[in-house]
């Protein structure tokens, strides 16, 4: 009796949880609540496609297994009509065993092929593009634009969203132009960190003594939060940064403002375009 009651409550609670998750929660700025952030680069899109391919395969396998399991639980339970003597004694079925070995091997090959294509797309650095250096340290980031002679600016006011829970957070901007290949050179000066921007689909470890590379090409202007993703000490959770994607006119303006602030001559737009590897 108790068991029946508890299992009923269990089923109801699980169902309620699912419904609550599906309907009640809203995630601002996430077009895909409960999934990846909306991809904002071909890199992130490639990852999302690879994920979808594998995800749906795992869903089919998962439903198959859970379905058979549930069927067996209800169909083969012991009852007044089904005593112990009803249990069959078989313990082999060679054709079946061959089938459920071969099919998973084929699925593995399919997933490997799909992932292989994505892997080499993501890992081949584009020839044209602008190099930006990200240097991680306990507990912040520095961004440098070696071909423009400038660095990122300090944050001048607390980040609105990230400070909403009562902790004032000054978050540096990584400013990039829309539509250009951004080639990141990522390193660290003290311990391991990781450069992670979910909406761009990039994550790579920042390792002292090594320079790691990732690239992305932002498709829409806006602000996209990035964060350190490798445990790096007491304030690891505070290592936010903000990828500020500007349209091309704003970007040229921003570059020249920074150049003037650093005591350099403004750069002609054409020259900035050459550095970016695109046309303006």
């Amino acid at each position, binding site marked *: 009796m108790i068991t029946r009651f508890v299992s009923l409550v269990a089923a109801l609670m699980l169902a309620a949880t699912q419904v609550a998750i599906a309907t009640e929660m809203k995630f601002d700025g996430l077009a895909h609540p409960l999934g990846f*952030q909306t991809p904002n680069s071909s890199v992130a899109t490639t990852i999302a496609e690879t994920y979808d391919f594998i995800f749906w395969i795992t869903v089919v396998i998962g439903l198959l297994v859970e379905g058979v399991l549930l069927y067996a639980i209800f169909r083969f339970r012991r009852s007044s009509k089904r005593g112990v003597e009803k249990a069959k004694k078989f313990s082999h079925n060679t054709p079946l065993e061959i089938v459920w070995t071969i099919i998973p091997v084929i699925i593995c090959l399919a997933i490997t092929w799909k992932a292989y294509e994505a892997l080499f797309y993501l890992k081949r650095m584009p020839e044209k593009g602008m190099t930006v250096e990200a240097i991680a340290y306990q507990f912040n980031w520095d961004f440098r634009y070696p071909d423009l002679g400038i660095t990122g600016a300090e944050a001048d006011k607390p980040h609105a969203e*990230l400070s909403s829970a009562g902790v004032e957070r000054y978050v540096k901007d990584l400013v990039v132009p829309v539509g250009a290949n951004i080639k990141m050179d990522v390193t660290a000066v003290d311990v391991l960190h990781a450069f992670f921007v979910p909406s761009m689909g990039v994550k790579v470890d920042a390792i002292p003594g090594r320079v790691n590379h990732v690239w992305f090409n932002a498709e829409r202007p806006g602000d996209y939060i990035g964060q350190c993703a490798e445990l790096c000490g007491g304030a690891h959770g505070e290592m936010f940064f903000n990828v500020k994607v500007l349209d091309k006119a704003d970007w040229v303006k921003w570059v020249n403002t920074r150049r003037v602030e650093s005591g350099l001559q403004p750069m002609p737009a054409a020259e900035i375009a050459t550095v970016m590897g695109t046309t303006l």
Partner: protein
Amino acid sequence: MSAEAISDNHGHHDHAPSKKGFMYYLTTTNHKDIGKMYLLTALNFFIIGGLFAMFIRAELAEAGYQLLNHPFSVGPFTFSFSGEFFNQMTAMHATFMIFFAIIPAFIGLGNFFVPIMIGSPDMAFPRLNNWSFWILPFSGLLMLLSFFVPGGAPGAGWTSYPPLTSAAYSPGPGMDMWILGIHLAGASSILGSINFIVTTLNMRAPGMTLFKMPLFVWSMLVTAWLQLIATPVLAGAVTMLLTDRNFGTSFFNMAGGGDPVLYQHIFWFYSHPAVYIMILPGFGIISEVIATFSRKPLFGYITMVWAIIGIAVLGCLVWAHHMFTVGMDPRAQMMFMAMTFLIGVPTGIKVFNWLATMWEGVLEFTTSMKFAIAFVGLFTIGGLSGIVCAAAPVDYQIHDTYYVVAHIHYVFFAGSFLSIMAGVYYWFPKMFGRLMSEKMGSVHFWLTFIFMNVTFFPMHFLGLMGMPRRIPDYNPVFSDLNLLCSIGAFGLGATQILLIINAFWSAKHGKLAGSNPWGGHTLEWQVSSPPPEHNFEKIPVVK
């Protein structure tokens, strides 16, 4: 498989003193006592590791800092939890659950049942067995003591990646105590695995050929080999860390020509197989439990054995799937990725075989069977999310996020923990002669089942949405799901009190079990409950 256990009472009297005091347990060489002590130790450290998890979930319940950075006074002293303290909690939660709860729990069950299941009076090296047990609680205590030294416990994750763990960034002695604790736990584990291998290969009763051994014995044998091969490598990694910290070497120090990534390779060469050390014995237990309560022989026994061996061999070749973001050659990533996918094949075979064992059986839903069925259903989720994690391109997005936390908890909680529970409810009557309360067991099962899913399932979403792991505060968009996880975690933690009450109450007051309460066919069900001092009055002959 059947056996003849001839029980003519021929005045072979018990050597055990009637009252068992501390000295008895300190010096006992009886595998059954040692097995129980392992289980009790595992339970204690499970509680400690669980409390650490409660701290983590309390801090993460809402956006903003809940426990951290809020000074509070106890008498004349003022304390404040720092970010470092939060890191100590995550590091020690994993360390205690892995090295001092899950692994010892399986070794405890193995210690008690492997000798009986193969028809042996004891382990091959009973004194070594005593020694490998007694190292363990003290290495756990050493780790705990690190909370009280200057600088506190190590707070660099259970993975302890340098340079964060180098002398410059973790200056206190806590890190060294962690390293020595790992050395001791590793020594215990290596000695224990030698004992298991020798016992299984040399102490089997006449007629008990290798391919007649119950699947649990097979799984412990393969696990022991994995421990023997992999644990010394972990010892090597932490020894290099120790000398880097204290004796001026530069294995992992780039300023001296070393490489921090080297540590990760060596560490994961142990720590990926460690996942199988923590799941293969569970596979063995589940095979025993499902066959018994389906009233059918295990489906595909031979393929089950080869699947375990296959998983173990492949498991030693995939370590760098934890390191896809370190900037490895894509061709190497490709190989590690493909090998990891392949592990899905033998794992799938095991799941299908369990389903086929239940098929057309007569299922009896004892608490043990409930845990076993939940294992099959939920471990499958952990296995499938493992395929997702193993795809290198997808891993660039979910590595070091809560997706990985969700995945590993569906492996260690839905996998290891549920299988340990299936084993405990199944074998408790054999160990103590009394049945555990099925009613309380059933409530324990259902609450555990609900709360573990409430705790760990939303973590998949958090990870996909981009919440990194090991952070005490987060982007406020993640707060709803985090609150759900925390509610689940507190429920899950509180539920385990039922297990403790049930075990301690039933050991004294439970219904008498008799020698074979479940109708099992393996050798342990042919001796009395609890089994006599040397298990068998005469060595059984297996036909």
